[in-house]
């Protein structure tokens, strides 16, 4: 019973694809999976927009939208109708082709990211040998799309917002990739399916997720902070902050293209949370060994919803970081922390199982966190010594 419920979508896909002639069968099964992914994540996007507004509203001691439908849950439909029927204003001096191409390429790149995420047991679209590398390669295409959006509007503030966004995304890509490299080292493979398979054992009732190791815990923290910065979400949303630079790089967009940008950003957020879950939180595996009868895709989406709730909570709670604070944080705290984490993961691998490796690795991680944190907040610099003599 648990097995059939777990594999129900896979068997459904095979049975529908069985109606096609043998040559077209792989094409048809891939297309079914693509349609399913597009449908599910578009629905999740619609749900997240209303959940975020209600969540932020409650954090700010007010109701969120509650007019359309019961408890405001049909708000996305109203939003969709509004953005589709708004007039599409393109500035006269704008570069028309690039202006149109930017949101389209952002959404295309964002949806392509889901091709390597295993959404359940045997439920990955393409089992690439270099899955994690594919993910990072496509997310760097998203940076180019943001530049295209900011530049094609021929607006000083849009360009400034786009430049800031790209600088932020490139700076935070380094600790993101370094945190993923620790997981790749521990799992021995770049394939996402293999990484989840490594985390699916249980010792007693506790799972073997990478987040339950010292380096994995630090790596998860680094990954999630860098993911927040990569998706331009608060507290790293200076490039698109409403009170700073109007809307940054999508100031000049209206109507459907604005909705496409919104969609692209949220889908990018889902995808990178999905990667974080795959790398650190065990993908589709259950947290306790007696809960494995619940289907794997339900666990993946439960974890995804928990991470999204975390993002919404942080957005409502923390103030926005300034550009220089953001860059300092990336280069002077996260990068050294990620490098020390890499060394810690190596130490963990070469010690034998036991209490000693827990103690050594935890001490290294905690001490470096405290020292780097103190260095960042007190502004320690590597400078030449200035000698002052008594006058």
């Amino acid at each position, binding site marked *: 019973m648990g097995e059939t419920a777990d594999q129900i979508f896979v068997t459904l896909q095979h049975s529908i694809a069985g109606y096609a002639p043998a040559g077209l069968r792989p094409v048809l099964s891939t297309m079914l999976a693509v349609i399913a992914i597009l449908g599910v994540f578009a629905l999740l996007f619609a749900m997240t927009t209303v959940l975020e507004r209600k969540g932020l509203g409650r954090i700010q001691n007010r109701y969120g939208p509650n007019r359309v439908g019961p408890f405001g849950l049909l708000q996305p439909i109203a939003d969709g109708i509004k953005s589709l029927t708004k007039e599409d204003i393109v500035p006269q001096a704008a570069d028309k082709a*690039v202006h149109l191409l930017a949101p389209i390429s952002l959404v295309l790149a964002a949806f392509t990211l889901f091709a390597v995420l295993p959404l359940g047991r045997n439920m990955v679209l393409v089992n*690439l*040998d*270099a899955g994690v*590398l*594919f993910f*990072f*390669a*496509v997310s*760097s*295409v998203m*940076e*180019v799309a943001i*530049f*295209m959006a900011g*530049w094609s509007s021929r607006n000083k503030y849009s*360009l400034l917002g786009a*430049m800031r966004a*790209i600088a932020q995304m*490139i700076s935070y*890509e380094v600790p993101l990739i370094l945190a993923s490299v620790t997981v790749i080292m521990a799992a*021995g*493979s*770049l394939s996402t399916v293999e990484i989840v398979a490594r985390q699916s054992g249980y010792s007693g009732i506790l799972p073997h997720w990478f987040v339950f190791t010292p380096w994995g815990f630090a790596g998860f923290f680094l990954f999630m902070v860098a993911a927040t910065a990569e998706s331009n979400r608060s507290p790293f949303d200076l490039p698109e902050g409403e009170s700073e630079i109007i809307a940054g790089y999508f100031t000049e967009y209206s109507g459907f293209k604005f909705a496409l940008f919104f969609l692209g950003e949220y889908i990018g957020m889902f995808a990178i949370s999905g990667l974080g879950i795959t790398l650190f939180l065990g993908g589709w595996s259950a947290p306790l060994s007696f809960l494995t009868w619940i289907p794997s895709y339900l666990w993946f989406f439960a974890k995804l919803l928990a991470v999204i709730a975390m993002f919404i909570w942080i957005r409502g709670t923390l103030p926005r970081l300034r550009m220089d604070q953001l860059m300092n944080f990336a280069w002077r705290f996260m990068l050294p922390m990620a490098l020390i984490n890499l060394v810690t993961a190596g130490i963990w691998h070469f010690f034998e199982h036991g209490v000693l490796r827990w103690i050594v690795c935890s001490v290294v991680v905690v001490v470096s966190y405290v020292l780097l944190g103190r260095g960042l907040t007190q502004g320690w610099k590597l400078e030449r010594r200035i000698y002052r003599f008594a006058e």
Partner: protein
Amino acid sequence: MLFTTFAIVTVAGAVAAMSFRHLVHSVLSLIVAFAGLAAIYLLLGAQFVGLAQVLIYIGAVAILVVFAILLTRNTREIQRSIAVSSWRQSVAVVFAVFGVLAWAIYGSGAISHVMRPQPEVAIQQIGDALILRFALPLEIIGLLLTVALIGAVTIAMQEKKEKR
């Protein structure tokens, strides 16, 4: 068929990159050319190299060129020609180079070669080769990238000490 499409896209992107007057259009066509090349690498079975091409060239080098363009902009649009004064000699040289290369390709044994099946390359093998057989080049390129990073930052840094 697929190869021909990607080849046409790449050549079109390269020609456009070299002939636009506006620099940012030129960089965007260069990105198209890089993407076409990455698709050709993936078609030839070099998965790691194709994805590394997208990540490094499109995600880093193209953005670096864009930043450089935006930092060195001339605010007034000059109506000069886009080519140097010695462009006729350059065209002759380019045709000569392409002629020599094409003659070398057709005259070599590449015309009659045996078709091999797609080699199955696991990423693990690339990792093993890099650490075991090519360990010294790996260390040297690490050093080279560090030196290039420090050098680029030093050269492009604003000099602050001149206002006294």
